[in-house]
């Protein structure tokens, strides 16, 4: 498999997963770089296009979570604080005017760390909980519970912070 072609084909997926998990484009670029360097060294072991995709999703998810664990980004809110704290101080007029999608994206990137990768893989990559469990190497029950919790938190948050959005619907 030709390296350049693989980078061009998958860079958007790799960068986007890292970006949504990390919430920081510089960090996402760094993680994506490392993933491609690692892929370069593993090309001989990647057997098919599906394998490449699975491998990239797995490696970028793990590297992003590792990056968060090393604590090089801003501290996160604990799960119980998240609904109250996150978004406090947002200018309501800005909230009204900014694209709803952007606010949702920001909310995902500030979810408690343990929940982010599963939510990103589910809604960005359109993967099933079973596929996510294989990628994150977690039990299926954990993935399902993280997805449900993440989704509930996002719904609740959108209901309070994006009132205009809720009324429009």
């Amino acid at each position, binding site marked *: 498999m030709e*390296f*350049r072609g693989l*980078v*061009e084909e998958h*860079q*958007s*997926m790799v*960068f*986007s997963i890292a*970006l*949504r998990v990390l919430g920081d484009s510089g960090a996402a*670029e*760094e993680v*994506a*770089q*490392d993933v*491609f*360097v690692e*892929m*370069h*060294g593993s090309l001989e072991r990647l057997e098919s296009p599906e394998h490449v995709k699975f491998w990239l999703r797995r490696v970028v998810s793990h590297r992003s979570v590792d990056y968060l664990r*090393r604590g*090089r980004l801003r501290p996160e809110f604990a799960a119980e604080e998240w609904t109250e704290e996150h978004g406090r101080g947002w200018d309501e007029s800005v909230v009204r005017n900014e694209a*709803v*999608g*952007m606010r*949702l*994206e920001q909310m*995902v990137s500030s979810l408690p760390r343990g929940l982010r990768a599963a939510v*990103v893989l*589910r*809604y*960005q990559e*359109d993967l*099933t*909980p*079973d596929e996510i469990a294989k990628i994150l190497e977690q039990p299926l029950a954990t993935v*399902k*519970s993280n*997805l*449900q919790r993440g*989704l509930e938190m*996002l*719904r609740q948050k*959108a209901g309070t912070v994006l009132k205009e959005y809720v009324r429009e*619907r």
Partner: protein
Amino acid sequence: MSDELEQEPMDEFERDLARALRRVEVRSETTAKFLAIAAEARAEHQRTGKMWVRPASGGRLLFLPKPQILLGGTIAAVLVLGLFAGEKVQERRKAEIVARQFEVAMRITGRTLDGVEERVSRAGTRQEKE
């Protein structure tokens, strides 16, 4: 859960979420950077056998020496430490021997002094009798 997630179609909120999380297009400069850094790592590895690592504090990739060199360095360090430790043990043994010899010498000196003292006191007693 979530048979909601597995089987049922997404609701409005989930569809919005999926739309909000559409993949981001990567700028061409970023692609060039991905390709360049991978090529650099590959070339470095082929030329010198060095492996790459990203420091925990972030920043540029670092290249480590060949595993054989790392292994050789580790063995050399262990040998040097071993020699140093051996030398220390020798020194300690020598000090123990010297201390023991000193102790013996002191004991001999003590016994000699006792003998001399006894002889002197016996000579004194004899003179008094005479």
